[in-house]
């Protein structure tokens, strides 16, 4: 992109961000802003589609909270058709990657969305959030700690091992690395539409991408690569092999929350909820007799292995599954790890490139040798 980045200085970065979003609404560049917002009657942060300029004061853009993977919500909003009106959508990188996958899966439309992708400092486990609102100081402290990779408590495992903390796609990249977000907000246009929106909003002044940015990103990525490797090696010790896999899932109650929270698992009727899995009573007795006993609800491992087969080539390692598990099963030790291995055989990184075809939607005549031969 030749267009210059824009710098906004308005109190802290959240204030600057709100100023930009407010301008987008006021100048009718967009008719709505999808962003994390403070609840009015609660202490939590949830996603909301804000249409009224006043409402922008609720937007809490950098709260370390990811209530759900937003791609699932955007898919709900745009599954049938593209949004009729232009909407600004604030997304974390794992959310915009999931959205790209959902578009490929024909479950969402990105036309008419102005994707504002933020550099990501990670999110805290919902269960670890305090009962009081996350105030500006607490958020600023988190951002500092996360920049230094020094968040001690509550960081989601998926975030601690994430290598994709800078968005691959989108229209505007909110740069947090390489700048002091307490002093200024850096908005980098990454598409024509992004540059046009920045110009139309008319806030801030021409800025530049500081040279320190690339270095900070590269250092962080290198550290994360190591952390990911170490985490997966530990996971393999804990859950590698059939017996250990059973042990890993011993607390699984078959609620399928991991599937429901997963942005990629879009099927309206999951195979596992279909009549295929309704059996005559005698079947259960037969199975029990064959194995001596039958765990119920049944098909624990069948469910997880099948879900992996159906979706793992699009898994974006967001960790929403782990957040959703009522029994705290550390699912980031399984799904993202398997996803790395599966995506590697197709040289694919889910959600990175909208032009790349889904691994399951294409093939090459000559590939994967010697599979099938012999």
């Amino acid at each position: 992109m030749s267009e210059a980045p824009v710098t906004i200085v308005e109190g802290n970065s959240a204030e600057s961000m709100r100023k930009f979003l407010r301008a987008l609404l006021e100048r009718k560049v967009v008719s709505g802003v999808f962003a994390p917002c403070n609840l009015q009657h609660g202490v939590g942060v949830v996603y909301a589609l804000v249409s009224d300029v006043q409402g922008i004061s609720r937007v809490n853009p950098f709260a370390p909270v990811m209530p759900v993977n937003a791609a699932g919500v955007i898919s709900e909003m745009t599954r049938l058709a593209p949004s009729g009106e232009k909407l600004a959508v604030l997304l974390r990188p794992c959310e915009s990657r999931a959205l790209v996958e959902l578009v490929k899966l024909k479950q969402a439309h990105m036309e008419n969305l102005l994707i504002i992708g933020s550099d990501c400092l990670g999110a805290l486990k919902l269960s670890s959030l305090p009962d009081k609102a996350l105030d500006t100081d607490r958020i600023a402290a988190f951002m500092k700690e996360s920049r230094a990779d020094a968040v001690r408590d509550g960081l989601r495992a998926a975030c601690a091992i994430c290598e994709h903390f800078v968005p691959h796609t989108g229209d505007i990249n909110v740069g947090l690395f390489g700048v002091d977000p307490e002093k200024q907000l850096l908005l980098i246009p990454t598409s024509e539409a992004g540059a046009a929106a920045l110009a139309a909003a008319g806030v801030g002044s021409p800025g530049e991408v500081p040279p320190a940015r690339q270095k900070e990103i590269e250092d962080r990525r290198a550290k994360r690569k190591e952390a990911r490797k170490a985490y997966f090696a530990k996971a393999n010790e804990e859950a590698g092999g059939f017996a250990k896999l059973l042990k890993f899932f011993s607390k699984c109650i078959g609620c399928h929350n991991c599937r429901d929270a997963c942005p990629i698992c879009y099927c309206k009727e999951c195979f596992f909820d279909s009549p295929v899995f309704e059996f005559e009573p005698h079947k259960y007795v037969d199975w029990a007799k064959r194995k001596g006993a039958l765990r119920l609800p049944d098909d624990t491992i069948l469910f997880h292995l099948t879900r992996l087969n159906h979706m793992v080539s699009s898994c974006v390692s967001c960790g929403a599954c782990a957040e959703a598990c009522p029994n705290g099963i550390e699912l980031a030790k399984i799904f993202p790890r398997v996803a790395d291995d599966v995506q590697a055989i197709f040289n694919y990184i889910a959600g990175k490139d909208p032009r790349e075809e889904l691994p399951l939607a294409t093939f090459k005549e000559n590939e994967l040798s010697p599979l099938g031969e012999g």
Partner: protein
Amino acid sequence: MSDFEPKIVGFFCNWCTATAADLAGTTRMQYPPNIRPIRVMCSGTVDPVYVIRALLNGADAVIVGGCRPGDCHYVSGNMKARRRMAILKTIMKSLGLAEDRVWLRWISAAEGPKFAKIAREMTEEIRKKGPSEMAGAWEA
């Protein structure tokens, strides 16, 4: 261990491998009876869930048989099957499960002898490996 008889489930494409299996039978070729064949319309219809279900419910191994590349009656079902099986085997490997108990082979309708040979090879190999630990776990 010596009297262990592997149970192998075969998902065979109607147009090729299933016909090859019939041919091997009608021409009285010798091959072990360990494979329980299930006829499917194309290797591309085999969802990995069938394979996993077989493995978790008593099969010591699973073989999927399809038409040679370029010969699939539905143009590219076998090519899609190959991707699916590659994913399944990678998942199993990643999780430390015995992915070498899942085979994919192209066996055309005329290849009765090839079918018999593969049935012998597979039975021998699985016999050597012994019973699958995934086969009987009641809590899976």
